[in-house]
């Protein structure tokens, strides 16, 4: 009888844990069947980094932002700094986003659109609302041999404790980091770290390396928010098709 009552207690205590832990410093992280943190769900960044990674005042249709770059500085080499200034001057035409191109990594992570993470033990996929971009993150496998130039790069992941670490290479030199012309070459190497900090937040960090463009690696970080709206799903934003709609279906009058 004593044994049985203990079992009841344990069961109840387990049920009660989530509410108690949420308030403390050791937040409950949802876990997948294999014991890894479960990152699946619909997420979105709330930063203004897509307009400018660095601190910036507001402009028309551009909210001000504190920036997401550690140290508030991007360590361009001299030639690259000049290129960035030129990009900035020509940004209305030159930003690949104005052509609705795939935005690359890490930019896709802070586009102001939701995305959904799907997770199985060997394979994590991300489906983005913005131009139906996808990222496939294969775990514990090597990058295919290059040279390869992909808009979204090639992502390979591994778990370090509760952090999903994703190594991304094989980029084009065609994508920018933001609308102010911050850029990279095809030598870009991104290491992302996804660390759940509670049931509804992921701390996202990316280390950016590109010896052709930067004098040293640099870091960005920001939280990802789980979208909690009822029935939330990723919709579509097929921006290259805007304004090109056809009227095939209309009955002739």
């Amino acid at each position, binding site marked *: 009888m004593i044994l049985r009552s203990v079992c009841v207690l344990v069961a109840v205590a387990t049920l009660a844990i989530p509410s108690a832990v949420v308030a403390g410093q050791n937040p409950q992280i949802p876990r997948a*069947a294999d014991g890894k943190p479960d990152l699946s769900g619909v997420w979105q960044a709330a930063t203004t980094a897509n307009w400018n990674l660095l601190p910036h005042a507001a402009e028309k249709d551009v909210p001000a932002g504190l920036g997401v770059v550690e140290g508030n500085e991007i360590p361009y080499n001299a030639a690259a700094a000049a290129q960035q200034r030129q990009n900035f001057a020509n940004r209305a035409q030159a930003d690949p986003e104005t*052509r609705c191109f795939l935005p690359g990594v890490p930019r896709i992570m802070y586009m102001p659109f939701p995305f959904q993470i799907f997770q199985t033990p060997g394979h994590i996929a991300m489906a983005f609302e913005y131009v*139906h971009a996808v990222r496939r993150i294969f775990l514990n496998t090597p990058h295919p041999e290059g040279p390869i130039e992909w808009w979204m790069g090639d992502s390979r992941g591994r778990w370090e404790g509760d952090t999903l670490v994703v190594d991304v290479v094989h980029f084009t030199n065609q994508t920018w980091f933001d609308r102010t012309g911050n850029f990279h070459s095809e030598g870009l190497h991104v290491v992302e770290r996804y660390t759940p900090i509670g049931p509804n937040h992921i701390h996202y960090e990316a280390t950016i390396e590109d010896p052709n463009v930067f004098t040293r690696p640099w870091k960005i970080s920001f939280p990802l928010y789980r979208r909690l709206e009822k029935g939330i*799903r990723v919709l579509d934003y097929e921006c290259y098709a805007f304004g090109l709609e056809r009227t*095939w279906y209309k009955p002739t009058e």
Partner: protein
Amino acid sequence: MIRCRPFLPVLALGSLLAGAAVDAQQEAPAVPYTPPRTPDGQPDIQGIYNPVGTFYNIEDLEYQSLYQQFKPNPAMRGRSLIIDPPDGKIPFQPWAAEKRKPIYELHLDPPPDWVDPNAQCWPQGVPRHVNNREFEIFQPPGHVVIFNLAHHTYRVIPVDGSPHIPGNIKLWVGDSRGRWEGNTLVVDVTNNNDQTWFDVMASFHSDELRVTEHFTPVSRDRIEYRAVMTDPKVYTRPWTFAIHFNRNKEPGVEVWEEACVEANRKNIDLLERPGR
């Protein structure tokens, strides 16, 4: 050499279709197949598949090639991927048949407004999404996700009993909600926009299109696929389209990025218009 897969729809399609249609009409194995289960209990049909069909002309398999590779195959004359109605034709309402006729006739050299939407890198819609190029079925808990090699398009199919989104939101690949009936995945697709075709032949529909799909695995490496199209604005009756998918058994194969808008010069010109 750069190992990215170029956007070459014409060539890729040509090679894919060689002999494809013959396979399309073969009978499925008679022995019932029970797939293994995923950790959340779904029949596991994950893998990379190639559709055995055509998105050139779903009504007439004599014409299997595109554009400059045009080679009619008289052996397939009169055969169709449409199994209902029995004549294998899309049951267009008269006005719609009229509207389609000139686009159909000019498809080899279409004026800009009559170019196949898919050739403009627009998402394929359903069922063309699985009647196109190689695709991957991925089954994370509660979902079936389909990634298509072509244009990196994807479909998310919740199989958790969740309801459709509000009806007035129209999407390029619609809103899919699935359920498992035995080993068959049944998907109800609503919220389709009116911008996609089922093939190159102006086989259009309205935004009232509803598609009911059946994915039935009949062996480890083969899925039979049926789709019933209902659209009271455009068709006189529902019609059914049938193809099957063969597993890509190449060890370690992955579906890799294929950019479309980004790599297609013609489309870039189309994008040069006022406003973002």
